[in-house]
């Protein structure tokens, strides 16, 4: 509890620093990057004793339950997916927005308070082998919705059940398929006889 306030202050100062220091006041890139490196390193320590995740969804669940609870002190309110690499995480009382009064003027300022988290989630996923793009959407303070879009070229191969097969040279693959086919064939013969 007492350490939360320290982090809240540090977060506010980081936001302040990043925006004052860049030429463009709306440039959230640095802020996102600071989040990215933090997430990348943190997840490595968190998952040290956790078993390997079997697929993308399980990884995503870990991020939205354990990871989120540790950092934002509450579970996400909703996690949805379209099963094609698009995940929507909803938090109805997002930690960095709860101290801001709801209003249209404040709403304009909201992006700077969620950019760090976008980076944090992207960094964590990246270290777990998922290449993604994370964007956030704030409609009313303090609710916030994160869209995680998994980039399906490259890293996802680690999670495919056929990963090993797909990575092998073509002729080995054919051989394997043939063997499977042969097995099926002999089994059929066994059955018929």
């Amino acid at each position, binding site marked *: 509890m007492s350490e939360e306030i*320290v982090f809240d202050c540090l977060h506010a*100062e980081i936001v302040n620093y990043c925006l004052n220091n860049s030429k463009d006041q709306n440039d959230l890139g640095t802020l996102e990057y600071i989040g990215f490196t933090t997430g990348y390193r943190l997840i490595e*320590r968190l998952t040290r004793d956790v078993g390997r995740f079997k697929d993308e969804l399980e990884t995503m669940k870990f991020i939205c339950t354990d990871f989120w609870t*540790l950092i934002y002190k509450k579970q996400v309110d909703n996690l949805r997916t379209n099963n094609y690499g698009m995940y929507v995480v909803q938090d109805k009382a997002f930690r960095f927005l709860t101290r801001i009064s709801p209003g249209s003027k404040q709403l304009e300022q909201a992006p700077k308070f969620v950019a760090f988290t976008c980076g944090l989630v992207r960094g964590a996923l990246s270290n777990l082998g998922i290449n993604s793009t994370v964007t956030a959407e704030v409609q009313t303070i303090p609710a916030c919705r994160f869209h995680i879009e998994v980039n399906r070229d490259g890293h996802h191969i680690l999670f495919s059940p056929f990963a090993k097969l797909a990575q092998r040279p073509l002729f080995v693959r054919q051989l394997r398929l043939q063997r499977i086919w042969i097995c099926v064939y002999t089994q059929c013969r066994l059955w018929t006889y």
Partner: protein
Amino acid sequence: MSRQASRLDAKKVNSEFLTLTYGALVTQMLRDFENVDDVNKQLERIGYNMGMRLIEDFLARTSAPRCLEMRETADRIQQAFRIYLNVQPTISNWSAASDEFSLLFDTNPLTEFVELPSDLSNLRYSAILSGCIRGALEMVQLEVQSWFVQDQLKGDNVTELRVKFVRRLEEAIPAGED
């Protein structure tokens, strides 16, 4: 899932999260500024700003009365470190006039994963701490100076933070108010 959650120690993760975020900020600053002194200055300022806010939380949390002498202030600073960073510095090396003391840290949570490259030997990595003390005390009308004498990152045995009382600030009341 709940089994996994219990294995992760929330308190430890929190402090690691803080450490790593701070580290990311320092590296970003080193990229942004060419001069290490500028980074030190910037970190100190960030600490100052944080201190100004943290003192309010500290006063609300502990409902501490006014300090009458520097020794009491030192105890409060020690207490604040215990509350916010979960470390207990030792207070020592009082000057003869009792206006200057050192805080000795056996461990510094901010530098837990840090190793300074040799070309950054004049970077004061934990400058945020000295800034914090200065900012917090200024809000209770004490002007102090605070600087690092020894730093474990630079090969010393302990991290020593020196705090020196400068003067008591007068209550600045806006004109027309009593």
